[in-house]
């Protein structure tokens, strides 16, 4: 019977140890999950494809554009609404979306998706057509 405090003490330590994740979770401050603020183009209402498609499949579209321009010399893209666009990341995409930092990067960093290294070669400042470094 003299072992009772040891057994009880051991049990309490065990339970406290096993439930540490719960206590840690309770003790940390809550972070509110807010969807990333993406700056949408002011003057244009339509993208080169419906928004739902662009949201899920813009990478496929960009990949196709790249193959078309580099491999097949097809530089014009006829959109779903009949409008014709240049297949150009700097001119067409950033021409509307303006800043890569306020559009591409915000969503990509929010969802933890690494960007392909587009911008190590492609110019991300379309407004300064001939910028002096």
């Amino acid at each position: 019977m003299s072992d009772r405090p040891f057994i009880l003490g051991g049990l309490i330590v065990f339970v406290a140890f096993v439930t540490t994740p719960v206590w840690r979770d309770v003790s940390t401050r809550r972070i509110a999950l807010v969807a990333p603020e993406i700056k949408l183009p002011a003057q244009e209402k339509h993208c080169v494809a419906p928004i739902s498609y662009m949201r899920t499949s813009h990478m496929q579209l960009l990949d196709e554009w790249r193959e078309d321009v580099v491999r097949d010399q097809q530089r014009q893209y006829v959109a779903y609404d009949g409008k014709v666009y240049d297949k150009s990341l700097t001119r067409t995409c950033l021409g509307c979306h303006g800043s890569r930092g306020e559009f591409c990067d915000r969503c990509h960093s929010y969802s933890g998706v690494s960007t392909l290294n587009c911008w190590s070669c492609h110019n991300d400042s379309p407004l300064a057509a001939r910028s002096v470094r």
Partner: protein
Amino acid sequence: MKITRKQFLRLSGLSVIAVAAKKLLRTRTASGANSEGEKAVRWGMAIDLQKCRQKEGCNGCIKACHSAHNVPQFADRAHEVKWIWKQPFEEVFPFAQTQYTREIFAGSPVLLMCNHCDDPPCQDVCPVGATWRRDDGVVTVDFHRCIGCRYCMAACPYGSRSFNWQDPRPAITTVNADFPTRTKGVVEKCNFCEERLAKKLAPACVEACEEKALLFGDLEQPDSEIRKVLRSRFAVQRKPELGTGPSVYYLI
């Protein structure tokens, strides 16, 4: 039902004729579509060395090309990146000199660039298919695909290719936003201004040359300007004995 021998022969004969007729019709329509399609193009250049020599120290074409294509300028020659450049005559055409011509041609610069070969060795050795000859004769590089192994640089007999040993961006003074820069670890070279050809413009070097020493045109068209010049004047290619079939000709 019983088929007589005569009926069997008649039937099989008819089917053979039917199949042959269908094949014939198909090849006829296919060749018809081909002749109506786009004519074969092979872009080429003729460089008039007499005109090129006129103004000493003139680098207009080189400057125009390198600023249009964001070619970095490194001070260290080991890191040099070049699309179009000059080398002394005796290095370029060692076969075309005698002890007397040496007196006038020695040290006179010859303009060099990618020869856009008919059978480019760089294309053959590229392990990832990042470089290839287009149907119009332009040999291009897909910078997205290039893994930087530099086999193409070893294969090219003209030294037309450069490797980016370091990030080229800091070494570009004026960035042309319409053309991508390259990144560390890819090979680059002259692309015959394919981005300008798509807009029906002549290459930047041709446009920049005030002496009109560079002539650009379609080698497949017998009545094109370049073919007329190549017919009327003596022209040489670089290292023709290798069988690469350069598209750049030099009017001596």
